[in-house]
């Protein structure tokens, strides 16, 4: 058998190529989302039909089709965005986890193993697609579609920037809560149709967990809704300011607790450790996806890691001020837009800035999710249920009532919100500094030193 020798790549070329792709990917993905989300509105489509195609948009019968085509392109790009974000999250999580466990981690494909996600995806696409003989074949095949539909539909109402959102629904956050249910249906069907006891247990655990944690999550979401007075994702962000003391998380003491409850419940709802009981590999092999192989397995994993991005983005939207750029008010966007049919260049610049702010915040929250995964051990089933029903649900109710009272107070004394914001922001900064100092001291106490050069 002839041995295949791959050409040894020049490390410098490898590094340059990786950096080029790592920089080009977000530019292409975010750029496409920005352009298409701006164009997929009735007015730009009408301008396009009138000025490029030379028809009157009001009477031309195919205006609706042009609009549908732009919307389809936007859908395609957003689904691609979700897939790539999920894949890069896997790479990032593996790098972070390996550093946390003092090992090297991905380092083979591309500099820092950056292209590992492409290699993994290709490998999974080429694997044999096994369907257990005794399984319910139709439901076994259908389950990944439900999971993926529940994942993809969330992006419809997920904000990317000031005007960059596929559809700013009036009922945005409510819609997101509702479509998540499709993921549960998919997981249940996957667990049942596999006809394996591990998969069945995994599916049942998942259903029990997600149904239970939807309650504290839904109640905690009510807190920012109450403070903003709207269900729209963009409306909730617009009700907050750009500076930390204007964020919902700090502008009300109860909202801080609500954020913690929401965050824990979201971890549980997306089956993230320490709540990964549905796939606990030490007990259930891999739970509901134990029998899945190849591409179907890849879809489950894509959704699981894509959900990390989604839950971070929702947390940023509800509690951390979303895309608000410091010093840029709503009037500035309006002024930069200009009077033309298409926005002026300054407006595009502001949009890019708002997208960058949203990305950075989401990335930081995402890191928190990853750190939690590699820090805490998995909890037991009874502990999971206790935590939800005995602590999170009453706590969420309490924050809900406290926010109602707080809103009455703010209506009487408008300064209360600012005072709370400043005090809690200072407290958060102090806590962060103290945490970093403790971490440094612990590292040095072990005879080690903080070393970031080996990243």
């Amino acid at each position, binding site marked *: 058998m002839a041995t295949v020798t791959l050409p040894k790549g020049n490390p410098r070329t490898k590094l340059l190529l990786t950096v080029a792709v790592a920089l080009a990917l977000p530019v292409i993905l975010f750029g496409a989302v920005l352009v298409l989300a701006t164009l997929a509105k009735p007015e730009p489509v009408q301008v396009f039909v009138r000025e490029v195609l030379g028809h009157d948009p009001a009477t031309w019968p195919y205006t*609706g089709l042009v609009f549908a085509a732009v919307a389809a392109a936007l859908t395609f790009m957003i689904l691609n965005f979700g897939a790539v974000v999920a894949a890069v999250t896997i790479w990032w999580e593996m790098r972070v986890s390996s550093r946390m466990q003092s090992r090297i981690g991905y380092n083979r494909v591309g500099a820092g193993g950056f292209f590992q996600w492409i290699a993994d995806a290709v490998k999974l696409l080429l694997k044999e697609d096994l369907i257990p003989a005794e399984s319910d074949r139709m439901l076994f095949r259908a389950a990944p579609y439900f999971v993926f539909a529940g994942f993809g539909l969330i992006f419809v109402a997920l904000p990317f920037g000031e005007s960059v959102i596929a559809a700013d629904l009036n009922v945005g956050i409510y819609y997101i809560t509702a479509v998540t249910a499709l993921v549960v249906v998919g997981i249940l069907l996957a667990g049942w149709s596999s006809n394996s006891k591990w998969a069945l247990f995994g599916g*049942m655990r998942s259903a029990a967990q997600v149904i239970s944690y939807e309650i504290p999550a839904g109640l905690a979401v009510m807190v920012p809704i109450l403070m903003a007075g709207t269900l729209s994702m963009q409306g909730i962000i617009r009700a907050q300011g750009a500076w930390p003391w204007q964020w919902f998380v700090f502008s009300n003491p109860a909202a801080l607790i609500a954020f913690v409850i929401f965050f824990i419940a979201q971890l549980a709802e997306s089956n993230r450790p320490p709540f990964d009981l549905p796939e606990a590999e030490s007990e259930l092999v891999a739970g509901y996806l134990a029998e899945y192989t190849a591409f179907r397995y890849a879809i489950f994993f894509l959704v699981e890691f894509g959900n990390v991005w989604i839950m971070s983005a929702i947390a940023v939207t509800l509690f951390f001020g979303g895309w608000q750029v410091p010093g840029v008010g709503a009037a500035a966007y309006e002024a930069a837009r200009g009077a033309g049919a298409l926005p002026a260049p300054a407006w595009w610049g502001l949009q890019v800035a708002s997208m960058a702010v949203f990305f950075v915040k989401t990335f930081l929250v995402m890191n928190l999710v990853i750190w939690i995964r590699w820090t805490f051990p998995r909890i037991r089933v009874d502990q999971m249920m206790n935590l939800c029903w005995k602590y999170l649900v009453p706590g969420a109710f309490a924050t809900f009532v406290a926010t109602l009272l707080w809103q009455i107070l703010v209506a009487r004394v408008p300064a209360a919100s600012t005072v709370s914001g400043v005090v809690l922001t200072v407290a958060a900064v102090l806590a962060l500094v103290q945490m970093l100092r403790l971490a440094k001291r612990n590292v040095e106490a072990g005879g080690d030193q903080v070393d970031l050069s080996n990243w």
Partner: protein
Amino acid sequence: MRSNTGKLVAWVAAAALVVAFVVYMTKQVVVPPSEPGAAAPLTVPGVIFYVLAAIAVAGAVGVAVSRNILYSALGLLMALLGAGGLYVFLSADFVAITQLLVYIGGVLVLVLFAVMLTSRITDVKVSNTSFGPVGGALLFVAAAPVLLAVALLTPWAVRIPDALAPTTASIGNAFLTRWLLPFEVASMVLLATLVGAVVIARKELKAD
């Protein structure tokens, strides 16, 4: 394997009867369109409407004819999704999402959960097969005229809203002003249901 020929003939006969009946009723009830002429061109929202309606109807048919209870649940999911989509066409965004949240996120997941917890549920004889084509046809003959008459004789208000107007705030205001008492009574009913469920599910612990 026993022969199904007799059953098949009965089914075909029943189907033919049903089709003939529907055609006859439609001819009797349908009113000629007031404005004969070219049909309106099929718009994109029109296509979406027909797709959603087809999903709802196909799902409902699936619930009725499927012999596997899990497939019935899946048909129910499709029917509820289609109905939710139709609510959007009625400018009822909040109701559409509530449909999705309550019926798919709550009811359907609980149905699936119950099915999964019941061992050998696929062996259970599904009741709708034992009802028989004759009884079904009779029921159809009894119900179809009413439904058809309602569908065809009602003066439907054909009005396309300019844009999807937000309904959440008006629903909330209506609940807390005009309809406060029914709203609160409904919550009492739910509370009674919860207490009842706990009483049934709770095991009495003997005091030592």
